[in-house]
C-alpha cells in the first residue's frame, strides 16, 4: 500500500500523522485529569502506529508513472474490510444489548457494560462504522468510474478514510467511558465533532476535485446522491453539534440550544441523518451497483433525477414528526406530518425505479444472491418508506411513538434496506477490486442472504408485535374508566418479543460474520491466472454474458 505512494506523498502522510500525534499529545497533557486526556492518548497512539507503517515502507521504490492509467482503489479495498469489521462489531453489540433486555443482570456491575453506554456503540457502530465506511469506500470507487478519471492524489483518500475511522474509534471508546452529548446519533463530544468537520470537508473537496477531472461531461446520477449525502450531512452535523465546552481541556460541553429549540434541532438532524446518510448515500450506491450487476441501465434516468430533488427537498421538513403531541408548536408538527406523507412519492419512485430496472433480469435475481440482496433492499426501501410516512401521521404516531414499533421501523430500514444494499454492493465489488472470478464461496453468499432475510423478518415482526401491544396497553381503559394496565404489565408482555428480536438479530449478525469470512477468503485465494484485467463486469457462474444496455 505504501509502495503505491510517491516519495512526496509519503512525506505528506508523515507530516499529517505527526500533526495528529502532536494534537493528541496536547490533548493528553491538557486533559490528563479527565477523559479528554485518554482520547488524546488514543489519537496519539494510533497516529504513531500509522507513522511506523509509513516509515516501514518509506524506502520502497517509487511507483511507476503508469499508475495514472488505472483507478486508485487501495482505499476502497481497505474501506470495505473496515466496514465489514465494524458491521460485525456493531451488530454484535446490538445483539448483546438486545439480550440485556431479556437478562438485565449481565452487566458485571460495571458502568461500561450497561445498556445505556453500549447502545450508542451499537447505533454508531452500524450507522457510522459500517454504513459510513461502506459509503466512503464505494463513493471512491463510483466517483472514479463514472468520471472516467483517477483521484487527484493518493494521500487525501487515506486521510478521509482513516481520519473518519479515528472519529469512529473516539466515539465508541467515549461511550464506554460515558463521554456523550446525549444527542441521539450525534453523541460524540465537541472535539470529536470538530475533527469530523475537518475530515468531512476534505472528503467533500476530494469529491469535487475528482469530478473536476472527469472526462464524461455529464455527472452520473449516483454522484448526485453521494454529493448530497456529503454536503447535507456536513450542514446537519455542524448545526446540531453547536455547543460550549466547559473548558478546552475538558471533554464535557453544553449544547447551545435548550428545550424545544434543541429538540427540534436534534430531530431535524436525526431525521435528516436518516435521509441523507441512510437514504441518499445508499441510493447513490444502488444507482451504480444495481445497473452494473444486473447488466441493465436504470429503468428511468429521468425518474431518478426527479426523485433526487424530491428527496432532497421533502426530507428537510419531516423531522418534526418525531415530536408529535409534545411541547413543540402544533403548526410545526403539522408541517412535518404533511411533508412526511408527501415524501412517499419520491421514495416510491426510487424503489419502483430500482425494481423496474430488474425487469428482464429476474433470472439473474433468482440465480445470483448478490443481485438478490439489492432487489430485497429495494423492496424493503419501499416498505419502510411507506411505513415511515404512515407513522408520521399524527394519530398513528400517538400509538407508535415511544414504543418498539419505532425500533422495528428503523430496523426494517437499517437491516432490510441499508445493510442489504451494502452487502450487495460489497459482494459485487470485492471480486472486481481484487480481480477474482467470483467470491470465494458463492454458497456462503447464499447462506448470508437467507440468514439476513430471516433475521430481518423475525426482528421486524417481533418489534411490530411488541410495539403495537405496548402502545395499546398504555392507552387501554378498564371498566371503571381508569387505565387498565400498569407500566410493568406492558413490560412483562414484551418479554417473548424481546427474546425473538434478539434471536433475529443473532441471525443477522451470523450472516455478517460469514460475509466477512467469505471476503477474507476471497482476498487470500489465488488470483485467477487467466484473468484478463477487464474486471469490472459482474461474473455470475453459469450465466450467459450480459449485454450492456440491452
Amino acid at each position: 500500500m505504501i509502495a503505491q505512494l510517491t516519495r512526496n506523498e509519503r512525506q505528506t502522510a508523515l507530516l499529517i500523522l505527526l500533526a495528529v500525534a502532536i494534537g493528541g499529545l496536547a490533548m493528553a497533557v491538557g486533559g490528563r485529569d479527565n477523559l479528554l486526556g485518554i482520547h488524546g492518548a488514543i489519537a496519539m497512539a494510533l497516529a504513531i502506529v500509522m507513522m511506523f507503517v509509513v516509515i516501514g515502507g518509506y524506502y520502497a521504490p517509487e511507483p511507476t508513472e503508469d499508475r495514472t492509467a488505472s483507478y486508485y482503489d487501495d482505499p476502497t479495498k481497505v474501506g470495505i474490510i473496515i466496514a465489514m469489521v465494524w458491521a460485525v462489531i456493531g451488530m454484535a453489540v446490538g445483539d448483546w444489548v438486545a439480550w440485556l433486555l431479556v437478562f438485565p443482570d449481565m452487566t458485571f456491575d460495571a458502568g461500561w457494560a450497561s445498556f445505556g453506554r453500549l447502545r450508542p456503540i451499537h447505533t454508531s457502530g452500524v450507522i457510522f462504522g459500517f454504513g459510513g465506511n461502506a459509503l466512503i469506500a464505494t463513493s471512491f470507487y463510483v466517483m472514479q468510474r463514472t468520471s472516467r478519471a483517477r483521484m487527484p492524489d493518493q494521500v487525501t483518500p487515506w486521510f478521509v478514510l482513516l481520519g473518519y475511522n479515528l472519529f469512529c474509534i473516539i466515539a465508541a471508546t467515549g461511550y464506554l467511558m460515558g463521554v456523550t452529548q446525549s444527542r441521539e446519533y450525534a453523541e460524540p463530544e465537541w472535539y470529536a465533532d470538530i475533527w469530523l468537520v475537518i475530515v468531512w470537508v476534505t472528503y467533500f473537496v476530494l469529491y469535487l476535485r475528482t469530478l473536476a477531472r472527469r472526462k464524461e461531461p455529464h455527472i452520473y446520477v449516483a454522484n448526485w446522491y453521494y454529493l448530497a449525502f456529503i454536503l447535507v450531512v456536513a450542514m446537519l452535523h455542524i448545526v446540531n453539534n453547536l455547543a460550549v465546552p466547559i473548558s478546552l481541556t475538558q471533554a464535557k460541553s453544553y449544547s447551545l440550544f435548550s428545550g424545544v429549540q434543541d429538540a427540534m434541532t436534534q430531530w431535524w438532524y436525526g431525521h435528516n441523518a436518516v435521509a441523507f446518510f441512510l437514504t441518499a448515500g445508499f441510493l447513490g450506491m444502488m444507482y451504480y451497483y444495481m445497473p452494473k450487476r444486473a447488466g441493465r441501465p436504470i429503468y428511468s434516468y429521468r425518474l431518478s433525477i426527479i426523485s433526487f430533488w424530491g428527496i432532497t427537498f421533502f426530507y428537510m421538513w419531516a423531522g418534526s414528526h418525531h415530536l408529535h403531541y409534545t411541547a413543540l408548536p402544533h403548526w410545526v408538527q403539522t408541517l412535518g406530518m404533511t411533508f412526511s406523507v408527501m415524501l412517499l412519492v419520491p421514495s416510491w419512485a426510487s424503489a419502483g425505479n430500482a425494481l423496474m430496472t430488474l425487469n428482464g433480469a429476474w433470472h439473474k435475481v433468482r440465480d445470483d444472491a448478490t443481485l438478490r440482496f439489492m432487489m430485497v433492499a429495494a423492496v424493503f426501501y419501499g416498505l419502510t418508506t411507506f411505513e415511515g410516512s404512515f407513522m408520521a401521521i399524527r394519530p398513528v404516531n400517538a400509538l407508535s411513538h415511544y414504543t418498539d414499533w419505532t425500533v422495528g421501523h428503523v430496523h426494517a430500514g437499517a437491516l432490510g434496506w441499508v445493510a442489504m444494499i451494502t452487502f450487495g454492493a460489497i459482494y459485487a465489488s470485492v471480486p472486481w477490486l481484487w480481480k477474482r472470478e467470483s467470491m470465494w464461496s458463492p454458497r456462503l453468499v447464499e447462506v448470508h442472504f437467507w440468514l439476513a432475510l430471516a433475521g430481518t423478518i423475525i426482528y421486524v415482526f417481533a418489534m411490530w408485535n411488541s410495539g403495537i401491544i405496548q402502545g395499546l396497553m398504555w392507552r387501554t381503559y378498564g371498566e371503571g374508566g381508569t387505565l387498565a394496565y400498569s407500566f410493568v404489565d406492558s413490560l412483562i408482555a414484551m418479554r417473548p418479543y424481546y427474546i425473538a428480536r434478539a434471536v433475529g438479530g443473532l441471525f443477522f449478525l451470523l450472516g455478517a460474520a460469514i460475509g466477512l469470512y467469505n471476503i477474507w477468503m476471497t482476498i487470500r485465494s489465488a488470483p485467477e491466472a487467466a484473468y484478463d484485467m477487464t474486471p469490472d463486469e459482474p461474473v455470475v457462474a453459469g450465466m450467459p454474458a450480459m449485454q450492456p444496455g440491452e
Partner: protein
Amino acid sequence: MSFFGFHYRLERKTIPFVLAIVGVASIGGIVEIAPLFTIHQTVEAAPDMRVYTPLELAGRNIYIREGCYACHSQMIRTLRDEVERYGPYSLAVESKYDHPHLWGSKRTGPDLARVGGKYSDEWHVAHLYNPRDVMPESVMPAYRWLKRNTLDTSTLSLDLKAMRAVGVPYSDDMIANATADAYGQASPDSAQADGVKSRYGEATNVRAFDGVQGEPTEMDALVAYLQILGKLTDVAHTPVKQASTEAGK
C-alpha cells in the same frame, strides 16, 4: 476549444449544482426552526422557575453519561392516557434550562418528566442499586457503582459558567460556590448547607439523598436530579391559558 475553456465549462456545472443542493436542502429546516427562536413571545413565562443546583446538574450529567435517556422519556404528550399516567402534559417552558433537552424518543421504561417527589429517596437509592429488589420484573440495569463513586465536584464552577454562556441565569455567587453548594445540598448538617437555600430558594431539597452525609456520591447527585424533575416550576399545574395562542391551533 482550448483545454481551459473546456474545463471551465465543466466546472461551471458542479458549483451551481452544489449550491442548488444546499439551497433546496436547507430552506425547509430554516423555515421550521427559525420561528421557534421567537417562541418566547407567545409562551407564558414561568417567573417562579429556578435553575438546577450544582448537585442536580451533576446528577443530570450522570443521567446523560449512563444513557438513561435511551429508555426514559421526559416529555408527557397531550394525550389523555399519558396525562392520567404521568401527570400534566409537558410545557415548552419547563425545559428551557435543559442544555441539552432530554425529551427522549423511547419508553422501554416509564416517562420521568414528573417523577420528582413521586417516590422517596430511599426508594430511588434501592431501585438504582438493584431495580429488581424493588420491581422484580424490571429490565433496568443495576447502577451499584453510583453508590461507591464519590462525585467529582471539582469542575462544577466550569459547568455553571458554560451553562451561563448558553443562556442559563446563574449568578456569580452561584458559580463561585458551586462545589460547596454540591457538598452542602447532600449534607444538611454541614456549614455549607445554608448557602444552598439562600442561593436556590427555600424549596430546594437539602437532604442526604443516599442516606449518608459528607462527601456527596454519584448516587446523591442522580437522586437529587430525579427528585427535581417536573418541579422547577409549577406552571404546568396551574390551569391557565398557558398553552399560548399557537399550541392550540
